[in-house]
């Protein structure tokens, strides 16, 4: 699918693994094939295609899954990391762009990225966040807790009739909306003060997303609401 989308003007491919919101991790085999395809397309185009790999959830893996980076198979990969997820502190902006050791034009890219930071009002984190990075890098969310919330919610939602897959990583569940208009369904849930992300707000019409960062008490109160909303959705319009 991606190969078919490449044209002579293609400069970059954006990849998100583990993937928000499906929770899928791209396999080593698919990334190797992607790297081979991008090498060939770059040669055909006469200029490199960069792979921008957003790995924001690389440390939030379930069931002992392993994260594989495309940098292993494609040297022109730029890796995006953030501490917003592993620290559950998205208001404290801290992350980085990492260039693999074997990336060609590495020095030139480093200078260009620094220049973009200066020209655009500085993309560098505040000084205090930089000083704190060494102490933050090894912190992790409670993975066992997240996984048990995932298992509880997946089982409950499936038993109510919702369609969803079990995510391999990230802290999201992507659920098919029982009615076509997912924004309308999200409004139905909000009537009972349950907030989900409607898919059409992020180009995913027909789905909604659940973030597992909610507390157990919120899950306790919300599950009967999800069950009732499904019953409402299945009720014939005439009744």
């Amino acid at each position, binding site marked *: 699918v991606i190969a078919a989308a490449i044209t002579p003007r293609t400069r970059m*491919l954006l990849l998100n693994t583990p993937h928000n919101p499906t929770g899928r991790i791209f396999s080593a085999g698919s990334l190797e094939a992607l790297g081979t395809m991008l090498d060939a397309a770059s040669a055909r185009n006469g200029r490199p295609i960069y792979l921008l790999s957003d790995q924001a959830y690389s440390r939030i893996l379930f069931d002992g899954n392993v994260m594989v980076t495309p940098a292993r198979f494609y040297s022109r990969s730029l890796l995006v990391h953030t501490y917003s997820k592993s620290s559950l502190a998205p208001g404290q902006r801290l992350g*980085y762009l990492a260039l*693999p050791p074997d990336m060609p034009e590495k020095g030139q890219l480093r200078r260009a990225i620094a220049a973009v930071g200066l020209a655009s009002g500085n993309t560098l984190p505040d000084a205090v966040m930089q000083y704190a990075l060494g102490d933050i890098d090894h912190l992790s969310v409670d993975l066992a807790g997240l996984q048990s919330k995932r298992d509880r919610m997946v089982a409950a939602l499936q038993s109510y009739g919702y369609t969803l897959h079990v995510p391999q990583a990230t802290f999201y569940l992507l659920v098919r909306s029982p009615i076509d208009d997912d924004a309308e369904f999200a409004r139905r849930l909000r009537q009972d003060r349950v907030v989900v992300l409607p898919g059409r707000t992020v180009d995913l019409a027909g789905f909604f997303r659940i973030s597992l960062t909610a507390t157990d008490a919120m899950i306790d109160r919300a599950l009967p609401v999800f069950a009732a909303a499904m019953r409402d959705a299945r009720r014939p319009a005439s009744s």
Partner: protein
Amino acid sequence: VSARVDRVLASLSEFMRMVTDVESLLARSEDVCDFGAGTPPELAAPAYVDALKHAAEPRSADWFGYKGAHRPAQEAAAAGLSAELGIEFLPEDILLTRGAHGALAAALGAVVEAGDEVICPRSTSTWR
């Protein structure tokens, strides 16, 4: 408003409307079950708070001065990423940013020109 930003606003309108709805819900009630944006539901971990407190304590006159890349931060990030991915990253190749948004903006700004194409695969193409 520029035509380009106008298009951005149009594509964000549904999202922004939802954010406004949720904000007004949160203002009216404390009993909201928020499964929306991954907002932290509880107080931050003590280890995280301690890291910020420690970092906010000035150890030199220029502690809060103009700051380029902080080498010890690059070294710590390189060590963490190398251990995670099994590839040896060099500290100078860690370009610190304001979260993932800053990193995405920096990468796009450094490489992509007007007229270039950036491929962004549809989220659910491999899911259905």
